[in-house]
């Protein structure tokens, strides 16, 4: 069964502008990465300060509300602190990091930049287990200790990082796992931990780790009846890479997801033809800072 005519979503307002600021380069090689980032994956390149500045200026007339920076590992981009300093003059910024490549002098700069700004600088740190035994098989040997050191460094500099956790456990274990995370973070000295739990996306490395999407896992037109479309990232976001403007941070490798070279021209419709669109539909708001729903939205039966 194929999804012959998937529903199309057009951009209503460009609220969230994302930057693939470190391309696909990462110091880690996580088993569940949906774009298979690694030290050797150079398929997308770094964005320069000048390119980000050009896009920030372009974003003013679009009325962008918030900016997000992802990779790869953003802190591998040597211009990242300068980029965040600049962005905080335009609006709120969020950076998604693995927390393992920090230097204290960068955090001093970022603390001063946030203090001088009207806007918040949110730090999202990815950790996938509350212990080396649960985290390291997914993120790599020794990464739990290194990421927790990163959490402590951000906390010491007055940030309240959002610990971002991919859900790699059965639903019935969720509460217990969340409790263990909170306990572990408090023991480390992070006394009011913020958590965001994300569904995994069955593409990239995760497709090898578990499975890809079934053909039945697609969004259909009837599933959008009475559905709040603002829950879908492509309804209010775009992402800039070194190739141009793409529909969302998850599908950058898909040829049809590259929409235009300018933000203004990237508001056309996008067909929700991918399995990842199904996950986005099921959980909602998977890329924004507040936690997405833990309850799966039940897909209505297909015609």
């Amino acid at each position, binding site marked *: 069964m194929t999804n012959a005519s998937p529903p199309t979503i057009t951009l209503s*307002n460009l*609220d969230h502008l994302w930057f693939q600021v470190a391309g696909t380069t990462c110091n880690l090689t996580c088993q569940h990465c949906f774009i298979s980032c690694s030290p050797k994956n150079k398929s997308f390149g770094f964005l320069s300060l000048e390119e980000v500045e050009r896009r920030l200026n372009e*974003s*003013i*007339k*679009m*009325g*962008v*509300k*918030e900016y997000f920076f992802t990779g790869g590992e953003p802190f591998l981009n040597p211009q990242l602190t300068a980029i965040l300093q600049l962005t905080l003059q*335009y*609006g*709120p910024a969020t950076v998604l990091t693995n927390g393992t490549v920090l230097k204290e002098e960068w955090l001093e700069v970022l603390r001063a930049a*946030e203090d001088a700004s*009207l*806007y*918040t*600088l*949110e*730090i999202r740190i990815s950790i996938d287990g509350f212990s080396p035994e649960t985290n390291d098989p997914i993120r790599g040997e020794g990464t739990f200790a290194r990421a927790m050191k990163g959490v402590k460094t951000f906390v010491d500099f*007055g*940030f*309240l990082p959002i610990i971002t956790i991919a859900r790699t456990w059965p639903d019935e274990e969720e509460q217990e796992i969340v409790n263990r995370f909170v306990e572990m973070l408090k023991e480390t000295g992070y006394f*009011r931990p*913020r958590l965001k739990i994300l569904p995994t996306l069955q593409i990239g490395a995760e497709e090898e780790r578990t499975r890809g999407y079934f053909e039945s896992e697609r969004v259909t037109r009837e599933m959008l009846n009475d559905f709040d479309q*603002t829950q879908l990232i492509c309804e209010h976001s775009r992402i800039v890479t070194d190739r141009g403007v793409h529909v969302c941070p998850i599908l950058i490798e898909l040829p049809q997801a590259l929409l235009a070279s300018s933000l203004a021209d990237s508001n056309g419709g996008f067909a929700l033809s991918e399995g990842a669109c199904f996950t986005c539909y099921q959980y909602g*708001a998977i890329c924004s*800072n*507040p*936690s*997405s*729903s*833990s309850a799966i939205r039940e897909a209505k039966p297909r015609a």
Partner: protein
Amino acid sequence: MTATSGKIRIACFGGIYNNYLALQAAIHDAQCRGVDALYCLGDMGAFGPHPNRVFPLLSEHAVQCVQGNYDDSIGNSLDDCQCGYTDPRDNHFAQISYDYTLANTSQVNREFLRSLPGSIRLEVAGKRVLLCHGSPRKTNEFLWESTTSTHFLERLADEYAADVIVVTHTGIKWRRKLSCGRHFVNVGCLGRPENDGQTNVWYAILEFDSSHGCQIEFVPVVYDYRRLAQEMRQQKLPLEFVAAVETGWWTTCLEVLPGKERRAGQY
């Protein structure tokens, strides 16, 4: 509304959250300051005790009201408050106060809530004023100071053809000047203190005159919070809510706060 005698002043109240004691104090304060009209931006219920005590005050003092997400929910007996929380602990506490408020709001008052408009437009001294609950485009959108860029607000002012946009929903006051003498203001709320360790709450007075445009003043309201806390205990509302009233620090609904606003609080 036209400025026939110079200045026009309107008082704008944010969410009341059943805090009829703060509402009473705010109405009295605004009347003493000689305002021309009273408005409330919605969310009459939640959090506090005795929901029905809010409504006679609104009616007796001709407070014109916008419908908030809570009012839509209570008015239509929905399952939850539509506050827009995503964290399980936030939702747990929100549900306790929602179930209490729904069970204790009379049919007549539910009808009143159901009848309220989603926004109110005014023309005051040549300025186009838009009163709404969360944002002009979505009733339960949170517009926090630290996560709302100025050019986003400019876009809202353009799209909704407004010189002054007035909202509540977050519970923390802030304002920003926009281009062409336009303004955005979040008036905070009357329902609970704003997570600053103080027990007072806030409302805003907007003053218009044709030569100076719009001036915005935030007004602190001191009220009998000890009595409110006592009544909340008597109604067996969560002690976490009582603590927020008595200390001025939020103990619940924390996960929706952006980093900057969260850091300013104690929890």
